[in-house]
């Protein structure tokens, strides 16, 4: 029967002896609660007869005469007041911000200071990312590439978070974080090669555009599946922890991705295992056409951290300095304390979900324009860099035209580069080609030889 059985027994006993004090026990919860309240004294006596597997404990009291008891998981204080925790907090969790909309540091704010070179490098990368997105998007619209995903509005998250890490930190992206690769030195030509699926692509033309990956730059290849990278990030962190490396893992996901089961389990695992991983949620308000109001009812993502035992913070994702400072601090905590950190970066998805989406169908155009113009993270950071005397209008136009030229050139080159050879259809499925794939390749080549007019001519045999 166990401990609870004995408890029920004691309720009945109490009732029979003191029927004048308590209402008759029926099946209703309310009455049971009344009995529970009145049975506290009895409960404390029954405790010593518990049949719990753990050592028998007597009940104890804290300094306020509240009863304490050990349950699996630790001590809890009892209360006689039945109070439900509200489904939503009185006030939403505050958002860490460093720069105001005009790029001025807010009074009393604290942030990691940057050198001129570093700040200019960050800003240049943000501009390059923004330019790259515009031109590749146009290229898709012109039919030159099949698909593209922009990171419009999330340049600060991309670049500032990357800038706060070292190259040893392992990155597991979702798909809206090419800026991290850009920061680490992935060239515009390499971006273009992947989008065109040509011979120069690291991925050998096997994935659709924006599924970049670079082992050299510690950036795991993008996988289309949502949130699957989260438990993988925990695994990578587990590997780093085993090797006692001075590095952490960083993984990105959107507001929509947090609904996946993998999000829940990854945070849970990371906390239990003390894995040094930074979870960055780009809460940009939209999961294709699903607004966050239809994605979850919690106060965003940051409040979920504590539910798993994960330290968390909410930052203004459009504030490059806030993102930079938060990620840098998170990295230190993750590595030195062997713990995961959750960062919710609030932002807005200015672009469409992808080139297969037209977001004007489900959200107002003026909302999009407002965020594009008035709340642009690139402009905001530019103002701060200019305010420091580190940037001018000439620098700006020179950078933008240079970036545009380079990207256009990269696209032109990528368009002309040969596609990967037919043999790459079959390699890397396994470490060596197994007999069945050798056979299938042979059959395919025979078929192409017999019907050359039915197969694309530009694929090298």
């Amino acid at each position, binding site marked *: 029967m166990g401990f609870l059985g004995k408890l029920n027994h004691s309720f009945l006993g109490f009732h029979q002896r003191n029927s004048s004090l308590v209402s008759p026990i029926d099946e209703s919860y309310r009455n049971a609660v009344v009995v529970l309240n009145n049975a506290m004294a009895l409960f404390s006596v029954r405790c010593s007869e518990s049949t719990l597997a753990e050592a028998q404990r007597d009940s104890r009291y804290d300094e306020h005469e509240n009863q304490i008891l050990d349950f699996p998981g630790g001590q809890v204080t009892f209360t006689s007041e039945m109070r439900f925790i509200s489904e939503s907090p009185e006030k939403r969790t505050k958002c860490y911000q460093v720069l105001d909309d005009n790029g001025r540091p807010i009074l009393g704010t604290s942030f990691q200071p940057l050198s001129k070179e570093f700040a200019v490098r960050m800003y240049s990368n943000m501009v390059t990312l923004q330019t790259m997105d515009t031109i590749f998007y146009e290229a898709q619209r012109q039919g030159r590439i099949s698909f593209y995903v922009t990171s419009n509005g999330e340049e600060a998250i991309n670049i500032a978070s990357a800038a706060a890490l070292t190259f040893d930190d392992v990155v597991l992206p979702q798909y809206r974080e090419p800026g991290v690769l850009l920061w680490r030195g992935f060239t515009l030509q390499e971006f273009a090669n992947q989008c065109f699926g040509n011979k120069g692509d690291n991925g*050998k033309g096997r994935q659709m555009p924006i599924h970049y990956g670079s082992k050299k730059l510690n950036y795991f290849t993008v996988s289309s599946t949502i949130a*699957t990278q989260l*438990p993988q990030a925990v695994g990578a962190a587990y590997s780093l922890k085993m090797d006692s490396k001075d590095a952490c893992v960083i993984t990105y996901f959107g507001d929509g991705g947090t609904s996946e089961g993998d999000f829940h389990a990854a945070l849970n695992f990371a906390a*239990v295992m003390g894995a040094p991983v930074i979870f960055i949620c780009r809460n940009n308000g939209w999961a294709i056409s699903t607004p966050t109001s239809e994605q979850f009812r919690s106060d965003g993502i940051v409040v979920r951290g504590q539910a798993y035992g994960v330290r968390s913070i909410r930052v203004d994702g459009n504030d490059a300095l806030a993102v930079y400072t938060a990620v840098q601090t998170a990295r230190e905590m993750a590595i030195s304390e062997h713990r995961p950190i959750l960062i919710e970066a609030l932002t807005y998805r200015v672009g469409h979900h992808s080139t297969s989406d037209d977001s004007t169908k489900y959200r107002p155009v003026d909302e999009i324009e407002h965020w594009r113009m008035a709340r642009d993270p690139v402009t905001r950071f530019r103002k701060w860099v200019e305010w420091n005397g580190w940037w001018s209008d000439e620098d700006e136009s020179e950078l933008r035209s240079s970036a545009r030229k380079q990207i256009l050139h990269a696209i032109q080159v990528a368009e002309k580069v040969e596609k990967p050879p037919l043999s790459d259809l079959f390699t890397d499925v396994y470490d060596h080609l197994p007999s*069945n794939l050798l056979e299938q390749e042979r059959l395919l080549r025979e078929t192409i030889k017999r019907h050359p007019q039915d197969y694309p001519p530009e694929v090298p045999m």
Partner: protein
Amino acid sequence: MVFHFCITRHELLLFEALREGLEEEMDRDPRVCVMGEDVGHYGGSYKVTKGLAKKYGDLRVLDTPIAENSFTGMAVGAAMTGLRPIVEGMNMGFLLLAFNQISNNCGMLHYTSGGQFKIPIVIRGPGGVGRQLGAEHSQRLESYFQSIPGIQMVACSTPYNAKGLMKAAIRSENPVILFEHVLLYNLKERIPDEEYVLSLEEAEMVRPGEHVTILTYSRMRYHVMQAAKTLVNKGYDPEVIDIRSLKPFDLYTIGNSVKKTHRVLIVEECMRTGGIGASLTAAINENFHDYLDAPVVCLSSQDVPTPYAGTLEEWTVVQPAQIVTAVEQLCR
């Protein structure tokens, strides 16, 4: 070739053979680690990892919370970062929850990353129909996984091949799924003291013969061998091959047998539709059609969830009597 008189052996049970293989590989390579539910201090539900947490620590033999998709994903991430994890599914059926990670990531990422990232993981656990474990605990996952490109699948059936396949799977650079069977863990055998590793892609000749090729794997091997005794008494000479490699099939060994006997009987535990037997039938027909004197016969479980009632459960699994009848009909 094995010269029995110069090999020293020791006796152990199949689950101990698995553990021995695992332990040898963990000694040999510090990157090998284990993760799963209750694999650490509890020693694993079938004791395959017993004692390992004490020896290697609870980081290298990691107890995970209950989230199969997630600890499989964790293993994928760890493998991409340089470790060689072994994922234990407490029951193979639970790995249905890990299908997303196994198919979309484990099997794919080496390919889609252009060969940059490899996933040398081993996914193992007990599957198959046990003794009244209920439908959800009697799944034959090899059916569902066989289509996934990029993975290999093997099934062990004796302590000898269990240890050899475990070691081979761990050393492989590809993701390998090692299917154990719930009812075979206590099989006893004397295995060599000297170290050995088996080939993942080879089938095992259990009993050479002339009249008919019987292809089987895992627990059904024992039903086939029981039927073989009866068949021999009736004057038949069956050739029994334990295919061991479920993906890819060892068509070399199988082909040589078909060319010799011209008659094939497949005995499996998978369901009739879409099982290993169905794929093997297709492969044999495609490759060895000219050598067959009769259509390939496949004995499988029916397309029903495994019932709990003992009698019903027995009738959903191929029994030796059915195998005998099938051979008699095939050889008519």
